[in-house]
């Protein structure tokens, strides 16, 4: 057996306040398909960004050996020159250029800056045959489905004479048929001697194509298992993935649970562009007054999409389902209607969807309920400032003043501003999407206390989180989702990280049984 094609030794990467990777080791043997598993936030993507030079040499500790030679990539082009190509989950193709133009983008067949179209088209044609894509190279990428676009990405990688191909959740957006074809292609490439790193949480896929699997958890390597022998069960992988340290203390509380506040019935949402794909598929759930209910799921499970769709149809295309508040059907076709019925949604992406970063704290807090600080359409700025001061004190928002631009705050303080905004709107139901993502430990504990207080005041709280200990520590009841469907409902007393993870990673067989 040949030596390893890739060795990453003792990789440590820290961001301000967070240690994303500590002492991670990864060895990929020549010509193998090596899977990487781990929960959201376990450090998979960070590790791949270190490998591909997105985080340049010097911004991390540890060393990378590719085919036995040490590598110091200063950017992604440097790693591509060595034959390491990463294909991200969000495809990076230019929709209005042709397949051929995309395949050779940045790598053109040209002499003195003039492109040779003959060579470009012939070569593109060859590459498309290799990946099994039967399309003319001059077809616009925008006219292809996601599955075919994925193949174009791989052709693009082959054009760069790839020796190690990294695929980040390649099948997350694909239907079953396209997924199957893609996995077969991975095996074909392997036969041609191209090694592959496959990041995936679909355990059935890993079982099918991978030779070995490395499990990451909390930025550490947990173990590397050989899959090829057929000795690794899904349970074995799950056991490695979960069991994160219970590093936080959760507020003590005795839930006083009332009647059902919010109920969603048979909610179905199509992908905004790809109408053949249901991103949320017939989901029914409910949350009672005073109750904290969790929604667990991995990337692409459809949790955020469900929440945003219920909240004023802010995502995708609604095709069916009802929302009931206290047993009566309500309309939530716009955000104002949803807010008017007492629903609040605290987004997962603070910077993009939660805050006006150019504006101050006070104006961000009041935006969800300006009516409460104004009379006949005119805002009382003094009242607004006083409200903001109140939340600055009660939520412990650390900022020089309530007029400080929110763009200048740390993640934890930004999150407190977003929470304040929706608490100030006095909703009956709060949907919190990843409320502690990217937040330091101290701020996390504070936010847990806030959530517990909200429940104690009789609010119904839905928490979407990728951190299982957080859900277990906080929630009274937990739903699990996978691939747009509800796959389980577990009382806290009955839930363990492993049982949840099993429901979150249901393989195709279990799903077929359910249908």
């Amino acid at each position, binding site marked *: 057996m040949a030596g390893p094609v890739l060795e990453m030794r003792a990789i440590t990467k820290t961001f*301000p306040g967070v240690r994303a990777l500590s002492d991670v080791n990864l060895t990929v043997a020549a010509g193998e398909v090596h899977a990487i598993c781990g929960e959201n936030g376990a450090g998979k993507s960070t590790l791949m960004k270190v490998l591909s030079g997105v985080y340049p040499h010097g911004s991390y500790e540890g060393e990378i050996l590719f085919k036995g030679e040490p590598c110091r990539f200063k950017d992604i082009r440097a790693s591509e020159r060595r034959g390491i190509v990463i294909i991200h989950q969000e495809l990076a193709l230019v929709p209005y250029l042709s397949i051929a133009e995309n395949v050779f983008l940045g790598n053109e067949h040209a002499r003195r800056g003039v492109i040779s179209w003959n060579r470009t088209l012939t070569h593109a044609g060859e590459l498309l045959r290799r990946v099994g894509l039967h399309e003319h190279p001059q077809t616009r990428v925008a006219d292809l489905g996601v599955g075919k676009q994925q193949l174009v990405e791989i052709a693009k990688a082959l054009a760069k004479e790839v020796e190690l191909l990294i695929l980040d959740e390649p099948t997350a957006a694909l239907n079953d048929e396209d997924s199957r074809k893609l996995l077969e292609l991975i095996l074909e490439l392997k036969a041609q001697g191209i090694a592959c790193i496959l990041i995936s949480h679909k355990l059935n896929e890993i079982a099918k194509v991978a030779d070995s699997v490395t499990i990451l958890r909390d930025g550490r390597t947990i173990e590397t298992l050989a899959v090829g022998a057929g000795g690794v069960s899904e349970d074995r992988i799950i056991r490695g993935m979960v069991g994160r340290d219970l590093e936080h203390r959760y507020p003590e509380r005795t839930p006083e649970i009332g009647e059902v506040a919010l109920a969603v019935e048979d909610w179905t949402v199509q992908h905004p562009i790809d109408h053949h794909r249901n991103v949320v598929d017939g989901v029914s759930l409910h949350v009672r007054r005073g109750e904290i209910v969790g929604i667990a799921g991995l990337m692409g499970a459809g949790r955020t999409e469900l929440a945003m769709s219920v909240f004023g149809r802010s995502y995708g295309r609604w095709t069916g389902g009802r929302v009931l508040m206290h047993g009566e059907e309500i309309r939530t076709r716009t*955000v104002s209607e*949803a807010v008017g019925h007492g629903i609040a949604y605290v987004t997962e992406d603070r910077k993009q969807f939660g805050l006006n970063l*150019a504006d101050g704290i006070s104006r961000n807090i009041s935006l969800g309920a300006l009516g409460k600080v104004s009379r006949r359409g*005119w805002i009382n700025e003094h009242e607004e400032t*006083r409200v903001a001061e109140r939340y600055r004190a009660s939520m412990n928002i650390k900022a020089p*003043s309530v007029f400080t631009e929110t763009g*200048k705050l740390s993640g934890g303080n930004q999150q407190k501003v977003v929470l304040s905004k929706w608490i100030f709107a006095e909703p009956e139901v709060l949907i919190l999407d990843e409320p502690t993502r990217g937040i330091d430990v101290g701020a996390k504990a504070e936010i847990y206390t806030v959530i517990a207080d909200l429940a104690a005041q009789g609010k119904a709280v839905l928490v979407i989180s990728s951190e299982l200990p957080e859900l277990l520590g906080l929630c009274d009841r937990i739903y699990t989702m996978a691939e747009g469907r509800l796959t389980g409902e577990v009382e806290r007393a009955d839930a363990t990280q492993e049982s949840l993870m099993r429901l979150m990673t249901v393989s195709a067989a279990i799903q077929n049984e359910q249908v």
Partner: protein
Amino acid sequence: MAQTGTTPQTRKADPEAVGRPSLQDALARALRGNVRQYGMLVALALIVVLFQIWTDGILLQPLNVTNLIQQNSYILILAIGMMIVIIAGHIDLSVGSLAAFTGAAAAVMMVKHHLPWPVALVACLLIGAAAGAWQGFWISYVGIPSFIVTLAGMLVFRGGTQIMLQGQSIAPFPRGFQKIGSGFLPEVGPRTDYHNLTLLLGAAVLAVAILQEVRGRRQAASYGLELLPTGFFLAKLAAVTAAVAVFTLLLASYHGFPIVLLILAVLLFGFGYLMRNSIIGRHTYAIGGNEAAAKLSGVKSKRVVFLAFVTMGVLAALAGLVFAARLNAGTPQAGINFELEAIAAAFIGGASASGGVGTVLGAIIGGLVLGVLNNGMSLVGIGTDYQQVIKGLVLLAAVGFDVYNKRKAGS
């Protein structure tokens, strides 16, 4: 970087000292939030002083100050609307053409068809509103970028102007209408060396301004908010008093208070208050700052953007009327490059190219910087060729300074 939250005064461990900020802290804080606007105010003052010296005192002579106001009034009116549109995250290139179009429409209605001028005036403002609604519809409900829609509008309204006027200027306007562009408030009372009504108006403005400041301060106190230190507050009042007094005396020693200045003052305070204190104004900032977040907060962004363009349309019509009244003719060449002057004024006055930032007062300051530069440079005999070069560089420098400042502020 990450730790912007805690910047405690390490020199004092006394916990009470944290609650009561020193004068320097309060000053620094008041300035920090408005570097651009205070910066432009200082720049404006510097430019005025510079040209006052350079022109041997001609710049601030009563006649010239009156001219300055009347010459720039239509750009200032446009700048107010442009600032609103830019805050909402859009742009309007059609305002110069639209101003010409409404000026021409006014001429046709008043001169050719002898409509009473107030009727024609209202009709023209409605035309402006309709034009704004037309563009606002394509921009917010159909989703065509404002740059394209208003570029189309620029061509359409310019062409419409030429069709309506058949390439000819139409003149003269009725006396009453002309006054909007070049008239003054009437004189009342006994003969003095000054224009009495202007003095009265100045005194009234001063009284209201001081009353407002004091009332605001008292209210803030009753809400238990942090106040400016008393000394600083008094200095601010003194500065306001001095500025109003000097300005009033200047105007009162010539023909008095220009009618167009009254219009401008009403627009400045009206739209200033609207943008600062109304829900719809706040929504405009939110949309420009982060449209996705605004939508997820329940802001009806399409309607707000639509209304911003309607407002811009009305203001463009008003600017066109003022220009036509001052020129005393409706002409096909009216309003050329007005849109660029208005956009430049808004950016010099603190607008952000990405939207969500800026004030109505800023637009006025920016417009005045350009206006004083124009006027001053003309007085000292710099040709229009060089004037353009200098104005262009001022625009670049003002925005560049802002970008540099933001980068220095970090993250």
